[in-house]
């Protein structure tokens, strides 16, 4: 009889470990076997042309889109599946939800709950998921709003905030769950240019405080400054990876070179 854990090699202490991730949308093979290992406190930036599968890959990490093949481990714990007699068995919705708490996610469209104030948004996770009492959660939420520079916007509804402010509240909302990892899905792509900086600044602060982060972005300057490692993705695969110095200043792959010329405005 096969040992139940046969498919999963021993945990080597990675904070995020994605192995052999495949994803299909109909006949479209959008992720074609992606491996990624991220250590604690590391900042990984994923760049690549649109349609290359970056966002989809990010969404498989917290199983917003469950991978069709492959698996994800967060801090050593397998996400979404457990070992059963017949191999992988999907866990219940409640268990998956519990596992997701440790993964914060920030979206391109902010996705603040539109019927809640900024403060209620930040409190929503602790109160509704962790069952923290409202007073305590409220205090913590005010602290987080202060951290992202929005303590005076606690009572504002999302539609009264600018894009940059909404995105900072969204970051605070994710942080309220004390995640081990933060995923950023093009966090500045919907922002007016003058608001990009305020969001990137918050992210830079976070990375300096040792948060493990995986970021999909087109902001090459930011990647250069904040990333420990940059991955270049195209056609559902990781084409090239390296430190910012290696990848941005000295890309080896032709597709990477072409992409970087395009995003940095060169011809």
């Amino acid at each position, binding site marked *: 009889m096969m040992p139940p854990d046969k498919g999963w090699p021993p945990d080597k202490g990675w904070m995020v470990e994605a192995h052999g991730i495949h994803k299909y949308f109909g006949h479209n093979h959008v992720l074609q076997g992606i491996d990624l290992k991220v250590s604690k406190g590391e900042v990984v930036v994923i760049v690549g042309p649109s349609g290359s599968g970056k966002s989809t890959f990010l969404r498989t990490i*917290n199983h*917003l889109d469950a991978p069709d093949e492959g698996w994800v481990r967060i801090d050593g714990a397998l996400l979404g599946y457990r070992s059963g007699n017949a191999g992988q068995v999907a866990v219940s*919705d*409640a268990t998956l*939800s*519990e596992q*997701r*708490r440790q*993964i*914060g*996610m920030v*979206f391109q*469209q*902010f*996705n*603040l*709950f*539109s*019927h*809640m104030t900024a403060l209620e948004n930040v409190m*929503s*996770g602790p109160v*509704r*998921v962790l069952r923290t009492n409202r007073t305590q959660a409220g205090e913590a939420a005010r602290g987080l709003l202060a951290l992202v520079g929005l303590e005076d916007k606690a009572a504002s*509804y999302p*539609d*009264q905030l600018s894009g940059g402010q909404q995105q900072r509240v*969204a970051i605070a*909302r*994710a942080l*309220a*769950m004390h995640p081990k990892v933060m995923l950023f899905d093009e966090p500045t792509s919907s922002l007016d240019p003058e608001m990009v900086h305020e969001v990137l600044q918050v992210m830079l602060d976070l990375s300096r405080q040792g948060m493990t982060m995986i970021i999909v972005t087109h902001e090459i300057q930011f990647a250069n400054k904040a990333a420990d490692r940059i991955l270049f993705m195209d056609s559902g695969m990781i084409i090239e990876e390296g430190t910012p110095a290696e990848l941005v200043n000295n890309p080896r792959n032709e597709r990477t070179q072409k992409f970087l010329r395009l995003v940095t405005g060169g011809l």
Partner: protein
Amino acid sequence: MWDWEAFFHYLHSLYLIKGAGISLALSIGAMIIGLACGLLAALMRMSRHKLIRQPASFYVWLFRGTPVLVQLIIIYTGLPQLGITLGVIPSALIGLGVNEGAYLAEIIRAGISAVPRGQFEAARAIGMTRTTTLRVVVMPQALRIIIPPLGNAFNGLMKTSSLASVISMDELLRRTELLIQVQFKVLEIFIVAALYYLLLTTLWGLVQHRLEAHFSRSVTASDRSRDKAPPLQLNEVALSHDAT
């Protein structure tokens, strides 16, 4: 000949007033059953699994495609033939409620569908279960969209409830008819009954207005932010036009 005296006499007839109360209670009961059936059917129709979606679609198709009067008669008069005997009140409640549910299912589904997908994903990403997401994030936003048509549905239901008189449910219309059989003041008594229905729907209109105001809270929040922009001054426009 119109008999004013009879009209005013029946206008404060306790018998008819009680009948109106029964009609209201029947409508509320049927609405509660309808909401339960409607919510269940709406959620089922949004499922990924065909086996869950199809029974709900069948339910909506069946009950929206046949007259509620026929449904009431089948439940009360037809079902005993299969050994299922329901009293008048359960028959009326179930008949009106289950029928209403088929309509409410569509209203509720439209409301839930109108909530952007990102709201659902954000809730899932902070670790809310499907049920919590629905309760805390999706339904409160869907309610803003659902409440107005839901209010109209209840208005309709209060009038449709008169059909239950056909299966001898002791409500306003039935009492009206019984009264006419002994008093012969046909027009006067029917007009009184109509006025009572009008009173019920009018009062409900007031309640509905307050409910809508309550559930559109964050919509008014956006109105407030829009108010911050100074209104366009017509005379300014005129002046600048003169200057050129």
